[in-house]
């Protein structure tokens, strides 16, 4: 499985935004048109797009479906969507408008059966596990639990989710690098593929992620947002670098 760079588009009120460490009071709007942004990512070589409905993450009801549908229709690459998906009906609605994979977050913690109910219809499901210092945070990151991220992922291995998306909140939007220590522990203990999210700020950070290997298992990809919007990194550069590194790494295996 090759390492995939997922460019992220976070939506609030139909607009493309980024938050800092999940704080809605610290949002930056990056252009009003998420569709052109998504098309730009596609033409830069993206294999996937990662969309988050931040309104839904907060309220639990989908708020940006029109934009999500337009993006799915305009693009010729698969799109995954997270944020506020707390029932199989909501997930179904998203698949019906062309979403390829849903990302179940809070609801997977509160109702582990939900992932199974969605996946058994043959749909692709990821679980999004967001943590603060290694502990699971839910409800748009407003609540931190006493459950460890790694333990939740282990529990979700058999849920039907094909991949876990791990976000370290303290890194998200900071561009200060990923939480490699936390990710190493997850790679060691968890048996489903894992995508890292939060903190990517340099090509060095990308090197660290692509090279990270524990007992033969590696990360399946990275989600990146702010570094692209702040023009600190280019998507093309990230994709080419990841491909090159993987090539080198596989020769060493």
């Amino acid at each position, binding site marked *: *499985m*090759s390492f*995939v760079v997922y460019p992220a588009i976070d939506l609030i009120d139909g607009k493309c935004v980024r938050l800092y460490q999940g704080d809605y009071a610290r949002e930056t709007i990056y252009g009003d048109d998420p569709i052109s942004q998504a098309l730009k990512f*596609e*033409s830069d*070589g*993206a*294999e996937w797009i990662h969309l988050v409905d931040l309104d839904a993450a907060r309220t639990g009801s989908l708020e940006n479906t029109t934009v999500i549908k337009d993006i*799915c*229709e*305009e693009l*010729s*690459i*698969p799109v995954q969507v997270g944020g506020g998906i707390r029932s199989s009906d909501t997930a179904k609605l998203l*698949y*019906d*408008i*062309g979403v*390829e994979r849903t990302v179940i977050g809070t609801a997977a913690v509160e109702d582990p059966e939900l992932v199974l109910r969605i996946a058994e219809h*043959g749909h*692709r499901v990821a679980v999004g596990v967001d943590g603060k210092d290694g502990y699971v945070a839910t409800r748009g990151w407003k609540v931190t639990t006493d459950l460890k991220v790694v333990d939740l992922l282990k529990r979700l291995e058999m849920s039907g989710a*094909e991949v876990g998306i791990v976000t370290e909140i303290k890194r998200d939007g900071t561009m200060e690098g990923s939480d490699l220590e936390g990710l190493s522990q997850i790679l060691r203990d968890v048996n489903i593929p894992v995508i890292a999210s939060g903190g990517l700020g340099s090509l060095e950070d990308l090197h660290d992620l692509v090279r990270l290997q524990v007992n033969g298992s590696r990360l399946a990809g990275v989600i990146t947002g702010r570094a692209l919007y702040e023009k600190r990194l280019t998507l093309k550069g990230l994709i080419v670098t990841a491909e090159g590194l993987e090539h080198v790494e596989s020769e060493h295996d």
Partner: protein
Amino acid sequence: MVKVAVLDYGIGNLRSAQKAFEISGAEARLTADKDLVLASDGVVLPGVGNFGKCAKALTDSGVREIALLAVENDLPFLGICVGMQLLYETSDESPEAKGLGLFAGKVKVLENAPRVPQMQWNQIQLEGDSPLLRGLEDEWFYFVHSYAAEQNQLESTTIATCTYGSPIIAAVQKGLLFGTQFHPEKSGKAGRLLLQNFLKICERTV
């Protein structure tokens, strides 16, 4: 403008397939109308999910007969994913269900696969020089499938393979009849080039 009929037989979301053809420069119509299909320059059979369900939907919608007519009339025809599998006689996924039988043989579960289904971007290797895959050697395409066509012993129809544990048939051709196991409509630039190649075939300019 090239007219493409995307066969609408009541399965899942076909909008992305239709849209991808529009972006590639065709007038693409979602339809199950016989006259419209036969008046088009090319026909696309998408497919998602379970072989048996798709085969049943083909029959129930009347699209089975229309698809066969289109092929009989020598219209360029492209089956995508389960739509490609439906071109075969049967599938191990649903042994009772009948495909269109346009290709000899059956569809069977992926063998020696590291994980089933294969859900990833994978690189194809070309066999021969199919006009559908011109310029696409070693390109990456998006796959989601648990089953794949069995190697045909009687005729060589394979135009591309990919490796996933073992070699898998990624695309097939017999005359103007084509199938891709991957999703060109979700495969970015490479996918768009494939669709444009198909449109050229529809225009009869290759």
